[in-house]
């Protein structure tokens, strides 16, 4: 095995990858309508801002880490309530986390080489999947970052026999668990990988007695401190049933790989593919198989992909966990082939050109996915995305409030079993009531008399002369907007 620790370290590759990643992640974060998951995360962050009490949400299976990291952004922006919030404030932390994810291959540079790490960083910087979900206010990118840190610290601990790195790994694992329940799957894949790579198994066995105990204690302490007991127990109690049934998110095995390799959501739309990363990852896994870290990452990615593909419950952002491993291996594939061609300059140049084309192709797709069609159904990364119509509805209700004597204190009744993401789009109105059903007679009367009612129409028929309009919130969900005709006509004037 070649020794790579003596390679001269230059900051240029790190800075180049960082700049590339940020260029795709920071601009126009407000572009896409707020997804229901994002609207819920925004409300949770505001609750943490207001109460200073973070908590693991066993219903959503997500922890408070994203909220805790978002609170300083909100503080700096002068936000005091949800009404002050803008979409970019809640998407900034995932965007920065996504850029840091692109730097994580450098944590493995000692094992895979700086060149491979740089190329892997480029894949992560421009991968359409990584770019798209870096611009999404969900905890997935933080989770990928934290688990990458666990693997990197674990490798350092194994390589140097220093327990301190194990504790850091335990800390990162605890924070990952407090971030999102699927951390358990990712950490499980890492444990399986340790068990299946003889060198890793030997090193862990050697240090187990003095390091593993403190690392587990660090893990438990950090998870409990951040997420409370729910962080350790909720996934096993509730999520297991959902994960195995799939609920509304049941998809067949092979769904993730199909999305990544060859995806055409609508027949008249374009084909999307990140197959270049997969092909180069297989090449890297094969050519770098002599190195334990390459075998470790190969097995980690395959096991994690197997987990996710086997479980009926699938949401597309979950693929980022194993796709991160594939991107690192793709960097190895490029670097190993580059080295193998050192005596053939012509072929080397052709290889470099081919890789550059692949990077540009991925970047072009990332740009189209995130900036041109961020909420279009022809985009395979769009999933249960709020439709643009809900933005229009929010603006219209604001306009109605401006024409109402009570202004933003105008009563708005929302009667719908699942109103999200409407709470986000009505956040600046101070008297908005949400009912799944009208529970009692007085509530029913108030709902019917409200100047503005937004409802699943078979639940309520508002009183008086009304103008009725219809607005979509999510794919297949259409709600009825009912407005007093007087108010409507005042707003039009």
């Amino acid at each position, binding site marked *: 095995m070649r020794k790579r620790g003596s390679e001269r370290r230059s900051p240029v590759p790190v800075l180049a990858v960082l700049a590339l990643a940020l260029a795709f992640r920071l601009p126009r974060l407000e572009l896409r309508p707020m997804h229901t998951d994002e609207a819920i995360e925004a409300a949770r962050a505001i609750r943490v801002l207001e109460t200073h009490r973070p908590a693991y949400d066993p219903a959503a299976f997500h922890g408070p880490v994203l909220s805790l990291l978002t609170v300083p952004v909100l503080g700096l922006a002068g936000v005091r309530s949800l009404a002050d919030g803008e979409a970019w404030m809640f998407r900034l932390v995932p965007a920065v986390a996504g850029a840091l994810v692109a730097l994580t291959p450098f944590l493995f540079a000692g094992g895979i080489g700086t060149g491979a790490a740089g190329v892997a960083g480029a894949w992560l910087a421009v991968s359409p999947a990584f770019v798209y979900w870096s611009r999404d206010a969900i905890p997935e990118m933080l989770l990928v970052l934290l688990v990458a840190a666990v693997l990197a610290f674990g490798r350092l601990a194994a390589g140097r026999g220093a327990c301190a790195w194990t504790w850091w790994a335990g800390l990162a694992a605890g924070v990952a668990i407090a971030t999102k329940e699927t951390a358990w799957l990712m950490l499980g894949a890492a444990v399986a990988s340790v068990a*299946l*790579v*003889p060198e890793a198994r030997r090193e862990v066995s050697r240090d187990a007695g003095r390091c593993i105990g403190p690392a587990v204690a660090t893990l438990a302490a950090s998870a409990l401190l951040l997420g409370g007991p729910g962080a350790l127990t909720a996934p096993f109690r509730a999520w297991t049933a959902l994960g195995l049934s799939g609920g509304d998110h049941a998809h067949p*095995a*092979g769904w993730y790989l199909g999305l990544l390799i060859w995806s055409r959501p*609508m*027949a*008249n*739309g374009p084909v999307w593919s990140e197959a270049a990363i997969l092909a180069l990852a*297989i090449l890297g*896994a094969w050519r770098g*198989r002599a190195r334990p870290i390459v*075998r470790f990452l*190969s*097995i980690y990615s*395959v*096991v994690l*992909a*197997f987990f996710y*593909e*086997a479980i009926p419950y699938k949401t597309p952002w979950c693929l980022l966990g194993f796709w991160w491993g594939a991107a690192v291996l793709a960097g190895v594939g490029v670097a190993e082939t580059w080295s193998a061609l050192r005596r053939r300059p012509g072929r080397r140049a052709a290889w470099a050109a081919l890789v550059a084309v692949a990077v540009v192709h991925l970047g072009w797709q990332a740009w189209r996915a995130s900036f041109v069609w961020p*909420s*279009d*159904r022809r985009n395979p990364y769009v999933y249960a995305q709020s*439709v*643009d*119509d809900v933005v*229009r509805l929010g603006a*219209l209700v604001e306009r109605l409030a401006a024409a109402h004597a009570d202004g933003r204190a105008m009563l708005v009744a929302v009667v*719908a079993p699942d109103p999200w993401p409407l709470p986000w789009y009505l956040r600046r109105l101070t008297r908005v009531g949400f009912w799944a059903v009208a529970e009692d007679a007085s509530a029913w009367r108030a709902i019917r008399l409200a100047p503005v009612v937004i409802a*699943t*129409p*078979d639940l309520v*028929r508002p009183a008086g002369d009304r*103008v*009725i*309009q*219809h*607005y*979509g919130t999510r*794919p*297949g*969900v*259409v*709600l*009825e907007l*009912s407005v007093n005709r007087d108010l*409507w006509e005042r*707003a*039009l004037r």
Partner: protein
Amino acid sequence: MKALLALLLLLAGPGFAAPAKAKPAKPTVSATTTGDRGVSASAETPRSSAADDRVPLDLKLPKPAFIGTPRNVPAGTTVEKVSGKLRPPFRVPPGTVNLAAGLPAGAGGSEPLVGEAKLITDGDKEATDGSYVEFGRGLKSVTIDLGANGELAAILVWHYHGDPRVYHDVVVQVADDPDFITNVRTLYNNDADNTAGLGVGRDREYFETYEGRLIDAKLVKARYVKLWSNGSTADEMNRYTEVEVYGRPVK
């Protein structure tokens, strides 16, 4: 799954080297239809020249793309509930034909994002990819030049009907000139907040279905037909699958 497992075992290294939408379609419906309630003609409506001899209008309908009432469908409001039943027959004067069949449709300078404008009058009304033309975001219109004045009995429009959706600000106008300056008459307008700037409309919104929207043209005489829309509850795009203009040439 098997491929993943094989790859996993292969990667394990020494000692571990032991060894991967179709919606139910109903038969094509050929039916007769009748006029819709809630249709208004804000312009002058000429008298029928053959009110007593009207015959049912024969329409060739596409396959239904979704069955029954969509989720969250409004009941008893200005959006018409999808009944699942065919419209009753709509009666037209004898000799009424689709005057728009195969004629070029203009989009006022808007280039389609998907498909071509000729799909609007090509007779293909199916809710399948390749059957519709898609224009971009916001208020868009398409215009059909009938080539000569016609006595118009009904206009049928299918936007995209592959899933339950309501198109916004649907306005249908006819006129005697291509710029819609002379003798403009509005046959349908559900733009309640006057977004399109064509006047406040009081017609009902409706869910797109395979039956299309039938607009009673009340035998107005016109050469140009213009249809507006402003995105839908599903997205901001404007899709037209087919427009049929039923009438008789004016001699």
